[in-house]
């Protein structure tokens, strides 16, 4: 019980602390619209040259809605600078003060991540609404209430997965001080295979069959696919299972790296 109280307080403190950066968030969101508009021009040109109205089942309208969902879901689940903060805690020895406290660093960071997501989502409601309203004619909301529930579940799992991946990568700082290269390599894979650039079902079938075993689609594409009703039934259940499996894998890896890293850290003396 007291542990819950501890991490809710961390969460609340995180809320206040992140709120200090509200203007950064707002500006960041507004400028993330630039690639969105780029994407619109790009697909408009493609559809203009296409022989049919649909590409692999997507009309132009479907495509616009897809990218609107990318913007919305990303602001809900994507870590902002959590990996840099964790990495610098380790590098600069700030970890010491956490090691002295009767607290778990993993849950502490997770509480802060959730707080960051909440503040970010709230702050960016205004610009996102403007975006959604201006493209309102393409919005195609699902009718079945169950779909909202399935999407919400997939989003919660996606956020957990995204956090655990970034936490795990940041822990590598215990061995190599500068993890930015790793982060960028991972980020570019993520950018491509999570469905950020285009819906993954546009890919050749055989590639999609491989990447659906990787964690990437479950970071973003999976909840969008559910909401768009392109993923349902058995495929959805399979998706949840793989998503959960990756969460477990990342969690175990993170725990392992933490205990190994801490041994090294306490040997060389923070």
């Amino acid at each position, binding site marked *: 019980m007291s542990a819950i109280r501890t991490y809710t307080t961390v969460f609340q403190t995180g809320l206040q602390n992140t709120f200090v950066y509200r203007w950064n968030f707002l500006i960041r969101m507004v400028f993330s619209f630039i690639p969105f508009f780029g994407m619109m021009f790009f697909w408009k040109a493609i559809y203009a040259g296409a022989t049919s109205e649909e590409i692999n089942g997507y009309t132009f309208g479907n495509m616009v809605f897809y990218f609107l969902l990318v913007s919305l879901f990303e602001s809900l689940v994507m870590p902002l600078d959590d990996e840099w903060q964790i990495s610098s805690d380790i590098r600069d020895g700030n970890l010491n003060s956490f090691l002295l406290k009767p607290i778990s660093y993993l849950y502490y960071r997770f509480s802060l991540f959730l707080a960051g997501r909440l503040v970010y989502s709230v702050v960016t409601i205004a610009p996102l609404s403007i975006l959604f309203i201006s493209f309102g004619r393409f919005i195609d909301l699902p009718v079945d209430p169950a779909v909202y529930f399935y999407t919400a579940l997939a989003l919660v799992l996606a956020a957990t997965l995204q956090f655990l991946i970034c936490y795990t990568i940041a822990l590598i700082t215990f061995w190599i001080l500068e993890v930015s290269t790793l982060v960028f390599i991972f980020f570019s894979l993520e950018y491509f295979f999570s469905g950020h650039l285009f819906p993954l079902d546009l890919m050749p079938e055989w590639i999609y069959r491989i990447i659906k075993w990787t964690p990437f689609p479950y970071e973003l594409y999976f909840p969008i696919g559910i909401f768009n009703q392109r993923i349902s039934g058995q495929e959805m259940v399979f998706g949840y299972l793989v998503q959960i499996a990756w969460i477990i894998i990342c969690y175990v890896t993170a725990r392992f790296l933490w205990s190994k890293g801490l041994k090294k850290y306490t040997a060389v003396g*923070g």
Partner: protein
Amino acid sequence: MSAIVANNLGKTYKTYKKKPGFWGAIKGLVSREYQSTHAAQGVSFTIEEGELVGFLGPNGAGKTTTLKMLSGLIHPTSGEATVLGFIPSERDNRFKKQFALVMGQKNALWWDLPAQESLELTAVIYEIEQESFRKRLDELTGLLDVRHKLNVMVRELSLGERMKFELINALIYNPKVLLLDEPTIGLDVNAQKTVREFLKGYNHENKITTILTSHYMQDIEELCERVMIIDHGHLVYNGRLDSILAQFSDHKIVNIECRTQIVPMDFSLMGEVLELKAQSLKIRVKRSRITTVCRDLLALEGVDDINIEEVPVEDIIREVFNQNKPVA
């Protein structure tokens, strides 16, 4: 049972020796030469409950390494430490709740929030009841005179105020053992004095076992009856501060001021001349010769004032360092 026991504590770091220049860096990729640094060697001491012990030594002597071993932040390579019956490096939560480390150069408070928020979070983490938290907070902020700063963003506080809140943050959960690493570093004279007086009173009333490192001798002189001196990783002194003073301060410093020009003469026969100006003289004299020298000096023409001081503790400690071999 002693609150802190260090038994033959040792810490050896293996550091990679980089050869200079670009080719050195390339060579380092293939074969590396390691160098062992003994940050602490055979450090043994015990500290009883409620004691306030000063821990002195030049930079890099092993003070912080020892404190980190006592905190469980680093594993000793040899020997063992017990604090309140726990082995620190096992990081037991029951140990953590009774222990605090404050480092003058590190910041444990939330930079962008008022100190109040950090303190409340600490209270929750250490499971302090709201009521006793309020009471302690009120008491501690009162003693350190920062109650009116509770709602100011930490980044807008002065260094002194921040340090005071760091102390409050560490003491709010009533730890039994407190390690202070340079708590007064960089503070102005007033803030130093407040912190010092606070520590004195707090230690006295709460019987908290404390180890204090400081570069300001005044901190040590006013707070610690007992000091430990470490140099090159070895404990070179462990005992009462006044006995080390007696052992090393067989000199006093005599100052005279004159109305007129001092008549030149060979003062070095009296002792070591520290400063000779037109109308003043500062001289270091052996204790046994002090009365003779004073009489001779007063016999000089135009002497206005004379005063006799103890050799500053800094100088004595420096002397211990310079000897660099175990004493006592």
